[in-house]
């Protein structure tokens, strides 16, 4: 058997905030296999954002080891970390975080620019990714001309375009209405079916219900880790329409 995709051991993260020492994570062990769908739950202050930042290589643990695809990424330089993010992880944020006044296509091409991929190839792959999330005909729209759901699809396309094995979605439906959030979740579930690991970070049990595995954090520790049969989002899409 190959090494797990994500293997975290004894992860601790402490911040200095003024005179206080904040212990956001206090020793977390977590193993995630390739192709899983997992939700990280917890109230605000539970450490789930810190968890996502470390898992997404935006931040580094104060203590502990983090093997990503068998490679230790806990002590990399900022530059190396950026490289790992570009190749391994796609982000989907609650507030979309697209570049404004820039077309959907260019938003999708952006991650590839930093991997040194040629313009022609970038264009082709970005188009593919946009088509995968059902945005045919919207490629050249500026992001501020798109609806919330469409913007989130652009963000998913951007996360997909680099063929990253992991997509981290931080409250991906937080700014969307119910019907649109079903559509977005259906797309994310579809990605899991193609072998991509999707990590949902949410405080809503409704959203966590779409994942096969749910982890609950409280005060910087994992307090619950359970498997479940996920709700199928596309059924809800059909029911709603």
């Amino acid at each position, binding site marked *: 058997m190959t090494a797990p995709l994500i293997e975290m051991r004894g992860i601790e993260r402490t911040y200095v905030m003024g005179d206080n020492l904040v212990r956001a994570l206090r020793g977390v062990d977590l193993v995630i296999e390739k192709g899983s769908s997992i939700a990280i739950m917890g109230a605000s202050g539970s450490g789930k954002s810190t968890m996502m930042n470390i898992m997404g290589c935006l931040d580094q643990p104060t203590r502990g080891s983090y093997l990503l695809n068998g490679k230790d990424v806990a002590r990399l330089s900022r530059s190396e970390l950026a490289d790992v*993010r570009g190749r391994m992880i796609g982000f989907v944020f609650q507030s979309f975080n697209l570049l404004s006044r820039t077309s959907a296509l260019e938003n999708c091409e952006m991650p590839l620019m*930093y991997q040194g991929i040629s313009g022609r190839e970038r264009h082709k792959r970005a188009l593919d990714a946009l088509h995968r999330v059902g945005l045919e005909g919207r490629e050249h729209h500026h992001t501020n001309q798109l609806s919330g759901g469409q913007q989130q699809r652009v963000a998913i396309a951007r996360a997909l375009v*680099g063929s990253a094995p992991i997509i981290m979605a931080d409250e991906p439906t937080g700014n969307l209405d119910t019907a649109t959030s079903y559509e977005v979740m259906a797309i994310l579930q579809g990605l899991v079916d193609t072998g991509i690991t999707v990590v949902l970070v949410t405080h809503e049990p409704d959203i966590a219900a779409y994942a096969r595995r749910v982890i609950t954090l409280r005060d910087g520790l994992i307090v619950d880790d359970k498997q479940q049969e996920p709700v199928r989002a596309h059924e809800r899409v059909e029911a709603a329409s």
Partner: protein
Amino acid sequence: MNIFTTLKLAFRALWRNKVRSVLTMLGIIFGIGTVIAMISSGQGAREAVADVFRAMGTNLLIITSGSQSTGGAAGGAGSRYSLTWNDLAAIENGEVPTVRWVTPVLSSRVQVAAEDANWNTQVMGVKPPYFLIKSWGVKAGTLFDDDAAANGPKIAVIGQTVATQLYGGSNPLGQPIRISGQPYEVVGVLETKGQSAMGQDQDDIVVIPLKTYLQKLDKGVGKYISRGQLYVSVASEDEITHAEAQITALLRERHNLQATDDDDFRIRNLAEFALSQQKSTERISTLLAIVAAMSLIVGGIGVMNIMLVSVIERTREIGIRMAVGAKPYDVMTQFLVESLVLAAVGGVLGLGFGAVLAKYMASYYGWKLFFPATTAMIAFAVAGGVGVVFGLYPAIRASRLDPITALRYET
């Protein structure tokens, strides 16, 4: 990320804030423009001054007799005759090797007349090297050479002012001219020289052969060169001081002066005067260039200011780019290229502005226009340098942003 993509991004980012970019560029445009105009016109002014002194004579030393004091009142230079025709012959015969040309210059103000006009002017008796020393040619007719001047012919070469005063619009060549009552023939009209460094009209002149002058306007040849000077042209600029010393030594020896005696002649070094003029011109143009450079620095600070604002405004964009894999280096390059483009475009426009300014100043002051390619290239490089230097700090700040904080940044 390759350079073309980076450039494209930079142009687009600047294009988005057109007004701001243009205003920032103005600082660079004015900075580069004034630097170029100042360098160019400084060179023009220097050349103009050099031209004036070149007109006075090439590497010129003027030797006059010394002063005589009678009863405690000094008579002034030339009041005592001490320079002899034999002194001249000694210099002419090459006893001072650094001397190239020498001529006596005798002059007096006399009345000159044509058929129906007359004029009071400076008449000079010289030997032919005079024209070489002054690098003065004719615009019509001929100068006189040694052969032509040998027997003291009654011929005259006249300046433009005299030609205009006596003959108006008609051709003076071959026309009779009366100098102090004696009839002469005009054989040449000198090129126009305009005003001297002292403001005299250099074209108000009549030049006749020395021998003729001595016979007709002076008292004939005695021992001393009375009421006259020697113009000496030194072979090269570097040897002027040396030549001055050599001539001094030669004349002192010829005049049998003891070591304790003062010189009984004076040598004026016009090159020295020219040099000091040139230096003061240079000092002023350097000062102006420094002021211009200051305005360029101010322009650069404008670039830095705008780039810092831009980094803050685009904090979120920086966060997004970092999240999708931009390395700190990529972010730094992006902002650095932006300020470089800003400065370089400003530099090119400033180059044009400077050229126009330099051209205007040159025509206004009557200078030659100097606009060497090297200046343009240096200006362009300086503009680029300003972009990098003043863009570096904002770019580094951008690259040091923490992606998590940057992503949460609310504008």
